[in-house]
C-alpha cells in the first residue's frame, strides 16, 4: 500500500484541493516526469503514460520504473522540441506538464499537438521559475490568456500554495484547433510541423 502524498506530488495536491481529473484508462502524456513518482501513481489508473524527462539522473529511475510497469513509456527528450518525440507518442486524452522553467508556458503550447479534441490540459506553474521581477497575478493572467488563445477552454486556476509553495495549477479542456489569426505563432508552427511529418 502506498500513500499518494499531496505534499510530495502536485497532482495529488490537485486531487485534494479541487477534484480528481478523469484519468481512468486514459492515455497520458506527462512532461517533466522526473524520477517518475507521480507517473507511477498515474500508471495505476491510466492505460498508458508517456513520460518525458530530460535530466540524465532522474531518467535512470524512470527507466527502472518502466521495466517494472508495462504501461510507462520513458522518453529521454527535451520537452521544448516535441518534434523529436512526435513519432513515438499517440494522441492523448490528458496532457500534464510539471516543468519548472522560465518558458514553461511556451513549452506546453508546443505540446498541445498531442492533445485530443476535448482532452484535458493540466499545467503546473512554478511562479518563481518564471522570473522574480514580475507580479505573480500578471504571470498567471498571461499564462491563462496564452492558453485560451491556443484553443484551451474553461481554464481554471487552482492555487496549490497549501502543499507546494509558489505553485498554481491551470486546468483546461482543449477544444477545436483554431487557426485564428491571433493564435500564437508557435502553435501554428508546431501543428504544421506535425502535419508535415505525418505526410
Amino acid at each position, binding site marked *: 500500500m502506498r500513500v499518494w502524498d499531496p505534499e510530495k506530488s502536485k497532482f495529488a495536491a490537485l486531487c485534494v484541493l479541487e477534484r480528481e481529473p478523469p484519468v481512468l484508462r486514459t492515455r497520458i502524456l506527462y512532461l517533466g516526469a522526473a524520477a517518475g513518482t507521480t507517473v507511477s501513481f498515474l500508471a495505476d489508473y491510466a492505460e*498508458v503514460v508517456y513520460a518525458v524527462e530530460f535530466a*540524465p539522473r532522474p*531518467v*535512470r529511475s*524512470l*527507466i527502472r520504473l*518502466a*521495466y517494472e510497469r*508495462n*504501461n*510507462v*513509456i*520513458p*522518453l*529521454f527528450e527535451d520537452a521544448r522540441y516535441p*518534434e*523529436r518525440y*512526435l*513519432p*513515438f*507518442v*499517440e*494522441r492523448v486524452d490528458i496532457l500534464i506538464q510539471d516543468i519548472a522553467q522560465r518558458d514553461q508556458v511556451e513549452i506546453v503550447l508546443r505540446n498541445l*499537438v*498531442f492533445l485530443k479534441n476535448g482532452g484535458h490540459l493540466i499545467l503546473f506553474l512554478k511562479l518563481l521559475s518564471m522570473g*522574480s*521581477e514580475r507580479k505573480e497575478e500578471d504571470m498567471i493572467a498571461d499564462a491563462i490568456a496564452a492558453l485560451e488563445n491556443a484553443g484551451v477552454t474553461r481554464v481554471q486556476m487552482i492555487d496549490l500554495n497549501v502543499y507546494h509553495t509558489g505553485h498554481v495549477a491551470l486546468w483546461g479542456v482543449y477544444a477545436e484547433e483554431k487557426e485564428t489569426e491571433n493564435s500564437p505563432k508557435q502553435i501554428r508552427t508546431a501543428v504544421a510541423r*506535425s502535419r508535415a*511529418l*505525418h*505526410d
Partner: protein
Amino acid sequence: MGHVPQIPPEKWFWYEICDSHREPAPSFSFNWEMIVEQIRAHRDHLTLCALPKWEEAVSAGIVLDRNGYLSLMKDLAIRVAIRDLEERCDADEIALIHLVRILDEIDHSISRLYEKMDEYSSALSSPLPHEEPDRTVKVRIDSLAHDTTHPLSHLAKSIQRMHESRVAIAKTVREYAQKTLPNMSALCGPLVSARLLARAGSKHHLAYMPAASLQVLGAGPSLFMHMRTGSDPPKHGIIYQYKGVHHAKRRVKGRVSRVLASQLAIAARIDYFRGSRDDDFVIKAGEKICRAGKER
C-alpha cells in the same frame, strides 16, 4: 557519434523500422541493436512519421493487438533512452561532480563534529586560563584519539579516518578536474573549477553560461536579495575561493572577480568544445587576471 546508418528517403513509422529488422520465422526476434541505431538516426533527422496509430501497426501485421503495440513501444523507448544516456553522459564528468559534492560534505561534517567536540571539552575544562597555546584542529583531534580513556577518543579516530578519505578524494577530484576541465583548472585551480562545474550541473551548462553568471555562481541568496531589494550585487560566488580573489585588496576584489569570470567563461568553452589545454590562452588569461589585481 557511432556508426550512422543510411537513411532511406521516404518517411517511416517507428514500427515499420522495427519490423524491417526482424528475424524470419520461427523466431521473429528483433535485431535491437540495428533498430535502435536506425530509429535514433531517423529521429535526429526528423524523418519519422508523427503521431503513430496503433491500429495501423496491427493491420500491417507487425503487432497482434494494442497490448503488443504498447509493449513493443516500451521495449524500444527503454533501449533508445539507455543508448541516449550512454552517449550524452560523460562518466568522468558525472564522477567529478559527485566527488566534489562528497568532498564538500565531508569537510562540512568534520567541522561540525569538531565544533561539538570542542564545546564538550570547553564545557568541562577548568575555567582558569590555559597554559597551553592555541593548537590546530588536527593536533587536538590527534591527541584526543590517542587518549583512549577519553569518551570521545573513538569519535576522534573516526574523524582522523574521515580526514584520510578527504585527502584521497581531494586527490582524485584534482586529477579528474585537470583531465576534464584543463583550461579552467589552469586558471583558478582544479578544486574551484570542480565546484563551479558541480554548481552549474554539467560542462554544457558551464560552457553556455555568461561570464556574469559564472562570477556569482554560488552567491544565489545575495543575488536574489539584490534583485528583490536593490541591495549591492554580490561580487563573487564560488570563485571567491580562488586565492587571487580572496587575497586581493578590497578595492580591486570586484575587478579581479569580473576579469577572472570572463576568462573562466572562455576557458569553460574551450574545455567543452575542444577538451584540450590551450597554453597560449592560459598564459594570456593569467596575465589579464594578474593585471586586474594590481592597484592602479
